[in-house]
């Protein structure tokens, strides 16, 4: 049994069209997974569905074999599924420290919170130096680190990270990906990554899903998937035009 299973997910926003038409995939415990695919494939939408922010129109998400259907985002988070969205989503008028405390909102024990804070700050030393600064005064790279650190405060079983490199300088991106790699290899965390910078995303991943036009086209080991001829087709847009040939 996979840790996280998606079965026939169909989803969209408001009264708009389906963004995801039919997605089924398995996320295995202890692995790092990367979802790749062209713009508008529905990658971010998929993460929102799993985190409970967007209820699917059809299909279901199973975590440890249990259906998450109808559960609120905070309940899903309490199960251990945590989401780091792409626009950082910090609390701008709270200090770095308060943002970290908010990350452990579901943990009521102060001793546990401060112990986790020490551990998290060790991974991101810059946050210790910025501890009393307001989040809105941080640079983009620091904000991304805070966003990851805040997510770690809940000690999730699965961490979903959406576009960690978005808007960051290459050097900062490398730092961020070092941390992501460590989360996967040293800490054995299950990760689900969405990344535009495909090579970078795949380099830290074990497994990869290719998403296009709202459904999963194929999947495979991360180190081999770029050699798949279907990838070239996908990014050149041929698959998008004539899905019946390859689908």
């Amino acid at each position, binding site marked *: 049994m996979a840790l996280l299973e998606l079965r026939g997910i169909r989803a969209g926003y408001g009264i708009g069209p389906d963004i995801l038409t039919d997605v089924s995939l398995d996320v295995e415990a202890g692995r790092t997974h990367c979802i790749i695919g062209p713009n508008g494939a529905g990658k971010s939408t998929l993460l929102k569905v799993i985190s409970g922010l967007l209820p699917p129109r059809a299909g279901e998400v199973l975590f440890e074999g249990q259906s998450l259907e109808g559960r*609120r985002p905070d309940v899903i988070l309490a199960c251990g599924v*945590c989401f780091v969205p792409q626009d950082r*989503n910090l609390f701008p*008028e709270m200090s770095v420290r308060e943002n970290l405390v908010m990350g452990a*909102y579901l943990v*009521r024990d102060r001793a546990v919170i401060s112990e986790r804070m020490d551990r998290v700050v060790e991974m991101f030393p810059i946050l210790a130096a910025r501890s009393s600064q307001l989040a809105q005064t941080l640079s983009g790279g620091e904000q991304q680190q805070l966003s990851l650190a805040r997510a770690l405060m809940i000690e999730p079983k699965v961490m979903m990270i959406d576009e960690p490199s978005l808007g960051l300088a290459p050097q900062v991106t490398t730092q961020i990906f070092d941390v992501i790699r460590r989360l996967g290899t040293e800490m054995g965390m299950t990760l689900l990554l969405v990344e535009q910078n495909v090579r970078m995303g795949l380099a830290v991943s074990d497994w990869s899903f290719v998403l296009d036009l709202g459904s999963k086209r194929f999947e495979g080991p991360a180190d081999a998937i770029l050699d798949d001829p279907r990838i070239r087709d996908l990014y050149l847009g041929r698959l998008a035009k004539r899905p019946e040939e390859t689908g």
Partner: protein
Amino acid sequence: MNQIIQVTILGVLLGGVYALMASGLTILFGVMRVVNIAHAAFIVLGAFFTYFLWESTGLDPLLGMFVALPVFFIFGAILYRLLFPRLEGSPRFSEMTVLLTFGLAFMTEGLMTYFFTGIFRQTTPSYLTEAFRIGPFFIPAAQFYALLASVVLLTGLWAFLNYTHIGYGVRATMQNRMAAQIVGVDVRRVSIISFGLGMALAGAAGALVSFLFPFFPARHWQWIAILLSLIVLGGLGSLKGAIVGAIVLAVISAFVSQYIGPVWSPMVFYGALFLILLVRPQGLFGKQVRV
């Protein structure tokens, strides 16, 4: 010079009460993006509540305030559960809440007129006509007590927001609703509590209004106009902004009232509203909305 200080004192006294009246409104907007047009109508309802409590039991309106707080909190939470879930998820949520609360304002006014009639009322506790003298200045006791009560309540609100677990959740939701959701804040519950809180603050403000101003059901239109300009000036959803805006505008209006004429003092609020929308649409403490 003495007169200038005296007018400033009166302005600050009034401003403190305006700040309390506006605080519930700005919290509702901050947490839920609800523009509660009915807020002042609920303040009038709070004034009636305190009035009848005072009339039937002789309970001082300042103490009546502490009865109004929990009663109105529960009333607010129930009202929210009854009316707002239908609007949640609507892509035009804020606009819809304007329509809904506009209707609520009319309904509240209509019911109050039906049951309580449209005559002017006022609670008249013994201190209503008293005043303290400090040197050459005089401080009306009623206004002073009202300011004190406002300071106590606003301090309590501040402590609640900054030092309690659910207060953190409310503040987080005000600053970034999506982020609050992803760290596990149950924003639905926060919304219900905030609506109850906004209503409790309206009820408490009503208790003070009951002895500060003669009131009648339709009086709320005048107040909501003033309160909306206050919270726009302060920056929608900013508590600090609403308080600063309330005191600044109340002081200015006190001067206008003294030196130009009382008829012109409401103009200060509308003038400020136009000016702020032209010069700094995000308000004094508001965040610039990115497009």
